[in-house]
């Protein structure tokens, strides 16, 4: 095979790159045209956060907030100013698409480092690249693909360092892991695991002093992102751990779920493992995961592979340990239909092991010998039916699970009534970012928690600042309701429409003359 490709004078890696790029673009267009690209509520929120950095009543870096880690939102900044890039989701998708191609290439390179033949390398890449869950997530403004790319890059460079002992490779590994720590907390766990591996390897291979120095070097780069994030929280929110303990933190959300009695995995390791394994099976279509597990066992048992390489390869399992632990400790929530009632939520977390599965499966194909074609045929058989039946649990998660919000009605009202009328809309971005996005109105029309003086003024005297108020009536989890409903000005509003996710109130027209409809605070700090 290699010779045939060599005759064409094109490197297999280039072919893989072209194929991955073509697949990526095709599926972005596919999901854009069928309008699934923005089905995830979170995708719309990510885009709004990016947009608020460059446009709104109080634009600036502070809009990055503390709910999510900032890297993907920062990367949107160069393109999100453009309305098409914002509302098509392309500003977020484009980084996912690049990450998809990069992850495919990294799988290829990782397998090359494991001395896997060309055919098996390409099978590994294909297992990742034709997974419809991966293809869907690479077409959206979600953070999964960026995380996969940076984590896989970190693991790959760590493997190269294990094999070559080149410090530059270690620094590069730390750099990629550092980037992953700025995308999702999975990266923090990877940094922890990688640090242990780096320390142990240097200590056993060299001496304690070298191990100490190497670990400090690795952590300095790898931990930089975390340090900056803590500093950011301290500077903006006056609490370095605001992201962890603040009112919008995952912890606060999980506490609400625990109060509602739906955080069943907390404190139950067996259930946590079961739920995550199901998510993993659904995202990978089961057979690749089973074959990947066999591949991992074969890798660990292979005497021709050095212990160092085996240990470095084990970092690929960090997401598995992280997700089970996060569920067990109650820091994460994941609903699998059939196990957690009749709904999905965050089932996409199961996709985190796809590069690992692809790598281990590629290794298995290389080592399968006489069963190589059986393994390849079976994998192709299952993946064919996944594509033919458009079986993607992530799409179900986005469309019918708890992650979706059909806010088109309430957003449609705003579009019809507010687009050609003056006046601000008071809304909680923490609760209703999807409405802000779907309304299609400029960000500067909205007064939300991140607009500083506008927000403080509006929640004190709404009738002077907001022509419309969008909120969930009688729900104190909605910041707008919690503050505005207690003000005297709220009596000047009338309920104009009522929807499943929010109600719309409009100021009585007799109070319009006193209403502020233009930005007046100028540049806020």
């Amino acid at each position, binding site marked *: 095979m290699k010779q045939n490709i060599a005759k064409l004078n094109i490197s297999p890696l280039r072919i893989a790159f072209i194929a991955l790029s073509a697949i990526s673009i095709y599926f972005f267009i596919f999901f854009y045209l069928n309008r699934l690209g923005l089905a995830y509520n979170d995708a719309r929120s990510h885009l709004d956060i990016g947009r608020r950095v460059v446009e709104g009543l109080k634009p600036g870096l502070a809009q990055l907030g503390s709910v999510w880690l900032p890297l993907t939102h920062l990367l949107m900044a160069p393109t999100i100013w453009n309305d098409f890039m914002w509302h098509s989701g392309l500003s977020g998708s484009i980084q996912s698409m690049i990450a998809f191609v990069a992850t495919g290439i990294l799988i290829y390179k990782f397998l090359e480092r494991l001395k896997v033949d060309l055919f098996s390398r390409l099978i590994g890449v294909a297992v990742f690249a034709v997974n419809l869950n991966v293809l869907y997530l690479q077409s959206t403004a979600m953070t999964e693909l960026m995380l996969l790319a940076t984590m896989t890059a970190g693991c790959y460079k760590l493997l190269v360092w294990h094999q070559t002992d080149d410090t530059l490779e270690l620094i590069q590994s730390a750099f990629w892991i550092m980037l992953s720590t700025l995308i999702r907390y999975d990266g923090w766990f990877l940094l922890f695991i990688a640090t242990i591996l780096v320390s142990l390897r240097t200590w056993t291979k060299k001496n304690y002093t070298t191990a100490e120095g190497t670990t400090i070097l690795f952590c300095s780069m790898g931990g930089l992102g975390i340090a900056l994030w803590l500093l950011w929280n301290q500077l903006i929110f006056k609490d370095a751990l605001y992201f962890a303990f603040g009112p919008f933190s995952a912890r606060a959300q999980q506490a609400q779920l625990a109060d509602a009695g739906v955080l069943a995995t907390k404190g139950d390791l067996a259930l946590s493992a079961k739920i995550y394994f199901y998510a993993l099976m659904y995202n990978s279509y089961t057979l690749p995961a089973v074959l990947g597990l066999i591949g991992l066992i074969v890798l660990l048992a292979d005497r021709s592979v050095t212990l160092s390489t085996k240990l470095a390869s084990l970092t690929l399992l960090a997401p598995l340990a992280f997700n089970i632990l996060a569920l067990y400790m109650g820091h994460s929530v994941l609903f699998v239909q059939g196990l957690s009632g009749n709904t999905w939520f965050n089932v996409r977390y199961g996709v985190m092991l796809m590069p690992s599965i692809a790598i281990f499966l590629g290794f298995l194909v290389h080592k399968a010998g006489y*069963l190589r074609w*059986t393994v390849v*045929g079976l994998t192709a058989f299952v993946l064919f039916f996944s594509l033919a039946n458009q079986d993607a649990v992530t799409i179900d998660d986005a469309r019918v699970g708890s992650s979706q919000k059909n806010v088109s009605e309430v957003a449609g009202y705003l579009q019809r009534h507010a687009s050609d009328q003056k006046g601000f809309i008071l809304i909680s971005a923490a609760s209703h970012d999807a409405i802000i996005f779907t309304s299609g109105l400029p960000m500067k029309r909205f007064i939300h928690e991140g607009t500083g003086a506008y927000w403080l003024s509006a929640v004190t005297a709404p009738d002077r600042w907001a022509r419309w108020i969008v909120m969930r009536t009688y729900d104190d989890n909605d910041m707008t309701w919690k503050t505005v409903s207690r003000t005297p000005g709220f009596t000047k509003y009338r309920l104009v429409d009522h929807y499943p996710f929010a109600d719309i109130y409009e100021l009585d027209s007799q109070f319009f003359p006193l209403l502020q409809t233009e930005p007046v605070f100028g540049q806020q700090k």
Partner: protein
Amino acid sequence: MTKFKFSHILVLASALVLLSLIIRGRPVDFKDGQTIYNTSPTGPYELSNSIARYIFTKTIVTRQDIFLTYREAKLSAPDVVKFNGRYFSIFPPGVSFLSIPLYMIGSAFQLPQLFAYLTTTLFALLNFYLIYWLSRRLGLSVWAGLLASWVFLFATNALVYANTFTQHHLSTAITLVGLHLIFTKLHFWHLILLGLVTGLGLITDVPNLILISPILIYGFSRSFQEPKLNILKWTGFLVGVIPFLLFFLWYNRTLTGSFFRVPQFVGRVSDSEFAAVKVNPEPTSTPSPKKGLSLPYKPRNFPQGLYVLLFSRERSWFYYSPLMIIGIIGLAMALKQPKIRPIAQISASIITLSLASYAMFGDPWGGWSFGPRYLIPASAITSIFVGIALERYHRNYYFTVLFFIGLIYSVYVSSLGALTSAAIPPKQEARLLPDPIPYTYKYNQNLLSQSQVGSAIYNLYLGRFIPATTFHLIFTVLALICPVYFVLARWKANSHETKHS
């Protein structure tokens, strides 16, 4: 290597006698020229897929039609499709068509059902022989070959389905013939025959194409490796397959209006179709089939399907036929032997494809059934490798003891199903019944203790002399005598060889 002798004919005769004991029938089933369709447990009509195919055969013979009347459709429910106001069987027509000759012979004796069902029994016997034949081609001794055949027929749920009117034994025969053919020199007529069995597979059960695909891919790949096997010879395959393909297309077009829409894709009639009191008035127009591609295998079902087929107490392979584990060990051993490696590779592909496809199928239980009925072809192939493991380890006493423990259990379980009922509900359905029943072979044990036996010979003759539990015990012991004899004979031959050496 031992040659085929008179004692081996005795073995075949023993198999025949045992198979005759599982032929279903109660006094009620023989009345009025077998026209009373009693669907209660243990009878020949207890399985809806059996009665639906049988009614279809009857329709073809008596009315020369492939559409069903309202009464015929009602009898065949729920395995019936209604399209454009007309009823027809949901199943491909292979089994029904193939059983026409025996149905007609049986009609002459007022026993059409008994004879029609014998089609399956004959295919079960054919499979017994094919497994022996393939085992011998793999270099096994006569005893190991016979043991492999015996394991398949009496220690797996193949026994239970040997006297039902289902596709499983025919599908198994098609796979085994294909496997045999592909390792011949592949003359032109071999390829015609391969085309014929592929075509027959298509009209018997569409998933047969998946089972036979590794055989075809391997055969085709040989064309590029062997100069004598000219690719043009594959026109022979086309000659064999095309008549069946054309028939299949015509059949689909006649029933569903489309060449490529098989009745399964249209879907079964609703539960209320034949209800005494209809909840909704009969629709005046048939709803059009769903647009877009919707294939029956969904990877989403894989985790549950794999569990049901491999580990569950409801249906799993290892719970109902633990001897198959020895077969898998034998397969792994065969993969290491260069001479038989290709056949082991293809076998591994067929077994895993079978498992993967039915794990993705929405109903891995196979409705009300006994054991993993969809894995019967895989069991046949795995049984061959039981022979290989036994040939290799027959001197190992621990292995032999383990083998016999597995064998006794597997024969006991299979004979329970064969002598009582093949209709065990899945767990979910069993628990929702007004009077819940067990969802494992415990149900068969209950039937046996209530003297509810399906065997015609028992019901008509032996029942007067022995209780049902004794009958089952005798059957189990008889089914175990031959394997014991095979192993003892192998030991004897072995000691003979040792003495001479």
